[in-house]
């Protein structure tokens, strides 16, 4: 480490401590912002100083969970620099590397948009790319543009860098087409598939010729077993696969993990097919790092939900289940998981429109809320755009008498709890900053611990 970097590093660590002492959140990105501003090349040096190198995870959906699963697999045997609080921009990554002094391996979740720069600066040994869904269009632009940026970035990877890609996402899979060191993962269980794509599915046209794909199996969004009947382009063979999948309600999901080094049964403590994809991505990343199968299995089984993604807390005689929603594909899977998990009577849905949520709230119309609207007894719409959400539900078919619009988060949470019978569970679906707000309320009432204390 050069003198300049050493100076910057100690200054930034001081900022982190001060920021935490001042109670300004976890101080997760402030020191990194400082270093990033002073000297962006510091990131190159910090990454190069890690003896086992760097592994990166990116995707529209599931990157925090995938990285947390990989951490669960890797951490017993390695000291990690892991951005567990989800600070996934360059400054957050700089912070993570700064504060993890004795780390051996960098395990980093990276925002889709900044991935090219982080690849260039950290020279990763393994990169896992999960999926591309339409996300916050006001912030990221169209997903083809993200894909083009990724394509250019993948071309700059060293030849021995291992690229793990989701073979079930035609666009993501195509990024690995001309590479040697590739691990392709996917789901192979037609019994768990749907036969039709959801409304507003992405990437449903052949990446080569533009003809609509024929899907033998649709698992999550546009992820599945696709084939173009015109040019023959199809899902490539899977190196790592999930087979014989068995959902266990809201408690978890089990599957057989098949890898080049053997197969094993895995039982995840989080539900949903999308978490099977996250597990496959984490397993592929760890295989790329040379982790044996038994460690993959035990790490995945030890895993508990990542920050705010699927979190329960107890409020007196009731429980609250927090499920983050942030874009149509993710929200659809959250809803599908709820559907598989049983019948919820009351639901609180929270929509904010800050930068981290997406300022353009039109995405709520692309979420397939309709099946829920026909069976739920009451929805409390809350957040800064509560009225907009209310319109989504009533125009979607929810009878107006089943809707309550309570913009203020805390009041909405209490209203939801009041509508939930003792012993019951209130399901809350918040966008990102609404989730932070709800967690802050829960923390204020002594129900959960702040996130910079709870992870690891």
């Amino acid at each position, binding site marked *: 480490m050069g003198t300049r970097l050493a100076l910057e590093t100690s200054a930034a660590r001081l900022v982190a401590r001060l920021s935490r002492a001042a109670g300004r959140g976890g101080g997760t990105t402030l020191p990194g912002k400082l270093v990033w501003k002073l000297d962006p090349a510091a990131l190159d040096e910090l990454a190069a100083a890690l003896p086992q190198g760097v592994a990166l995870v990116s995707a529209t959906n599931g990157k925090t969970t995938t990285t947390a699963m990989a951490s669960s697999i890797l951490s017993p045997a390695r000291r990690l620099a892991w951005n567990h609080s989800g600070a996934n921009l360059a400054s957050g990554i700089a912070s993570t590397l700064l504060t993890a002094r004795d780390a051996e391996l960098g395990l980093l979740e990276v925002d889709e948009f900044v991935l090219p720069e982080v690849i260039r600066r950290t020279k990763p040994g393994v990169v896992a790319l999960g999926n591309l869904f*339409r996300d916050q*269009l*006001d912030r990221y*632009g*169209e*997903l*083809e543009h993200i894909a083009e940026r990724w394509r250019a970035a993948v071309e700059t990877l060293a030849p021995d860098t291992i690229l793990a890609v989701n073979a079930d996402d035609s666009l993501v899979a195509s990024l690995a087409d001309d590479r040697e060191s590739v691990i392709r993962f996917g789901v192979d269980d037609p019994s768990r598939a749907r036969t039709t794509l959801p*409304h*507003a599915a992405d990437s449903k*046209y052949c990446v080569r010729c*533009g003809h609509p794909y024929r899907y033998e199996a649709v698992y999550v969004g546009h992820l599945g077993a696709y084939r173009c009947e015109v040019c023959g382009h199809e899902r490539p063979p899977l190196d790592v696969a999930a087979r014989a999948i068995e959902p266990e309600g809201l408690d978890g999901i089990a599957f057989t993990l098949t890898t080049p080094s053997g197969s094993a049964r895995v039982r995840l403590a989080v539900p949903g097919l999308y978490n099977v994809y996250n597990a496959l991505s984490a397993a592929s990343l760890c295989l790329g790092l040379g982790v044996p199968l038994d460690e993959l299995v035990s790490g995945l089984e030890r895993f508990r939900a990542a920050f705010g993604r699927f979190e329960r807390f107890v409020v007196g005689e009731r429980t609250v289940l927090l499920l983050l929603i942030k874009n149509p594909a993710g929200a659809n899977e959250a809803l599908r998981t709820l559907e598989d998990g049983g019948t919820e009577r009351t639901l609180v849905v929270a929509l904010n*429109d800050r930068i981290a949520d997406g*300022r*353009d*709230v*039109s*995405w*709520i*119309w*692309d979420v397939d809320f309709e099946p829920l609207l026909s069976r739920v007894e009451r929805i409390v719409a809350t957040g*800064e*755009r509560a*009225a*907009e959400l*209310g*319109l*989504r539900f*009533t*125009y*979607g078919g929810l009878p107006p008498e089943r809707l309550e*619009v309570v913009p203020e988060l805390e009041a909405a949470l209490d209203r939801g709890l009041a509508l939930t019978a003792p012993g019951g569970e209130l399901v809350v679906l918040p966008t990102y900053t609404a989730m932070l707000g709800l967690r802050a309320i829960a923390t204020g009432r002594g129900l959960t611990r702040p996130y910079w204390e709870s992870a690891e």
Partner: protein
Amino acid sequence: MIVRVGHLYPEYLNIYADRGNIAVFERRAAARGHELQVEPVSIGSTVVPGRHDLLYVGGGQDREQAMIAPDLVRHGAALRQAVGRGVALLAVCGGYQLLGRGYRGRDGSWLEGASIFEHETLAGETRMIGDVLLESTLPEAPGRTIAGFENHAGRTVLDEGAATLGRVVAGYGNDGASGFEGCRTERALGTYLHGPLLPRNPWLADLLLAWALAHASGSEPEPLAPLADELEREAHAVSAARARERGGRPAR
């Protein structure tokens, strides 16, 4: 009364919550005792002038728009005839661009449009993204406000004298320079505003429905009976406030 709706390329052009606009048409028509029959009009199908009372064209990503553009141009003459016969039409974002004369890419390429609206679109360097607030320039509703969200790289330049949808109060509008947004030909409206447009601007939905009903019955448009619209007003107010506080600031 039955209102026949032609939804153009729904599986390609659906990026900014276009089904929200259709849902608003359906519910608001039903609230007045009318039934919407929505029919997809996609690649390979035929547009028959007079068959539909209301046409809807949404927005897509660049790739999808390029895929359907040649088919749309093929329907150009039929669509122009339909508009001439008084069909109500709403085109949003990409659909709005595609219904102009054409789109000039940054590399100089020319993507021909269906020539419903008197405008051309030029690809710009930066995207114009943010909340928007308009004051209607429609003679049917002068000064009424329209709130939405815009996200476009194209600069749409209207011909001299072409009618607009509204004057920009906050946000970028057609080209970030003219101070106007949208375009109108007969009963066809084009706009960049999505979000989606209609739930928070129900009067505009009702105007289009009144036009569609007039087309269906062969009579003059009659204003529809008002609905309560409390949530609609609230959502409009929040969206309008967003535009005022953080909408795009065009260089004028």
